């Protein structure tokens, strides 16, 4: 059993790079925080860019959140948009009835989504694989029908929300910062879970649940808890998103496409990696927006985005981050695991 001393030297190398990596990421975050303020100084109208970026932040948060269950534990959920809807409706309803700002009720909306996830997970996480996926699709359909017919919540017409009371050059600010902070917290949570004993347990579950259980992992509790955490951030995002749009209808949240979006971003970037959902969200929204602005509403954007997706998955079968790591070409700046 001769063995080559392989990664023995790799580690110190990584550690020395760690510091510069942290400072670069810190700088990027700082720039993102300062970016909107340029709008106050210069005459340029950056609202379009702010919109685009807060949209990306939101999807970074949602995809990273989805990744906790779908990536680490390996349970694919196509129904995470239900938590998106629950968060949106909860905060919007409180805004209309009592005038509470969704920015304050968003964390609570997250807990409502979490409670729902606990309840649903308790029932559906008994099954694995395709059966679980189908159960999540069923969840979307059930909520769609319920909300379409819930008169108090506006039924299929939805609810109209008041516009936030700010001058036009600042109107995107609270949402931009809200989504940015949410994205940072979510990615950080995902990172902490990835490195915790809990995360190790979830990854064991994704590889072989029977073995995981035999190793002493309380698998059902872990799965339900992962489901609940991954519902939380999506719920918070939903609360802010509804306020941002100034109206909510079931058809905004409860399309299969919205739920699939999170899944596709994770697969594109690399399921089960910390950086994967972030990269996936940026690429997917970025390319879609690019094709949309190039081809207008000709729906060629769908073709373009699809082509990019197919191409990426052809060359990076385990997602961009996952495949690059496998061949050892992952830039240190993206190695967040």
């Amino acid at each position, binding site marked *: 059993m001769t063995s080559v001393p392989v990664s023995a030297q790799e580690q110190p190398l990584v550690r020395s790079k760690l510091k510069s990596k942290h400072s670069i990421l810190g700088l990027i975050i700082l720039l993102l925080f300062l970016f909107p303020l340029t709008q106050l100084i210069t005459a340029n109208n950056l609202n379009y860019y702010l919109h685009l970026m807060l949209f990306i932040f939101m999807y970074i948060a949602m995809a990273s959140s989805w990744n906790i269950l779908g990536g680490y534990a390996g349970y694919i959920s196509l129904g995470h948009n239900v938590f998106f809807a629950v968060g949106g409706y909860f905060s919007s309803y409180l805004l209309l009835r009592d005038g509470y700002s969704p920015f304050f009720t968003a964390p609570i909306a997250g807990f409502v989504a979490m409670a729902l996830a606990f309840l649903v997970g308790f029932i559906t996480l008994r099954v694995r694989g395709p059966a679980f996926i189908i159960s999540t699709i069923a969840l979307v359909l059930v909520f769609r029908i319920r909300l379409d017919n819930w008169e108090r919540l506006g039924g299929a017409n939805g609810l109209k929300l008041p516009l936030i009371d700010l001058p036009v050059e600042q109107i995107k600010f609270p949402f931009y910062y809200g989504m940015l902070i949410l994205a940072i917290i979510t990615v950080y949570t995902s990172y902490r879970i990835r490195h915790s004993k809990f995360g190790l*347990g979830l990854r064991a579950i994704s590889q072989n649940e029977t073995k995981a*259980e035999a190793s*002493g992992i309380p698998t059902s509790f872990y799965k339900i808890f992962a489901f609940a955490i991954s519902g939380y951030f999506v719920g918070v995002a939903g609360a802010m998103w509804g306020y941002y749009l100034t109206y909510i209808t079931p058809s905004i949240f409860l399309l299969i496409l919205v739920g699939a979006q999170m899944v596709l971003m994770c697969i594109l970037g690399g399921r089960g990696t910390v950086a994967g959902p972030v990269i996936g969200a940026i690429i997917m929204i970025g390319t879609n927006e690019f094709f949309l602005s190039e081809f207008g509403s000709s729906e060629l954007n769908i073709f373009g985005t699809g082509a990019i997706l197919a191409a990426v998955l052809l060359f990076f079968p385990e997602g961009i981050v996952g495949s690059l790591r496998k061949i050892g070409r992952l830039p240190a700046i993206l190695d967040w695991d």
Partner: protein
Amino acid sequence: MTLLEVKGLVAGYGSGPDILRGIDLTLEAGQIQCIIGPNGAGKSTLLKVICGILKPRDGEVIFEGESITRLRPDQVLKKGICFVPQERSLFPHMTVGENLRMGGYALKNARETRKRIKEIYRQFPTLKQKRWQAANQLSGGQQQMLAMGRAMVLSPKIVLLDEPSLGLAPLIVEHIFEIVRQFKENGITVLMVEQNAHKGLEFADWGLVLDLGKNVFDGPADTILADPRIQELYLGTRRVQEGI
């Protein structure tokens, strides 16, 4: 001192026939006991029942004077019985280090886990060298070493080994049995199933011969190795020696 006792165990899979048909076994503390027998004798099934993966239809498993017959696998593990199945139960896409951490999952104390993993690395330098590699990149022998090292992290009272030498080159088989001996030196009692009956009995203190789900013979390993009847029936060497 009797550590583990199995009494009249009857078990089978699903609604199928009984695989075990009344097995008795006594495992003394500090022993290496080797279970041999032809294919289908119920050797692996016996281990599965002991570690709680398979529920028996009848009979009892008593560990340190306490029945563990109806416990779940993780509860049995917490009692100190660790099972290393044939397929080695590694997580193929996790690194060697992560696999060892999985071995200590049932431990509450993180510092204690780290200390024990360090101890494993001291005993198996190969594993230390490869600790950042995925388990599926290891050779068969190294995987078996990792599986056994993983079992040691918990410092169990008993480890159950299901054919540790399966599919390994003769030189590596020797090495694996050295690890079995290492278990014993660490004060861990070993109950193993072995196809390679000769090698297994050579390293064992006690032997148990199973056939068709029943005990056929039970005694010190060297007695079994010397018994001509058993040699002919289960070790298959006598005829070779006679030149047939």
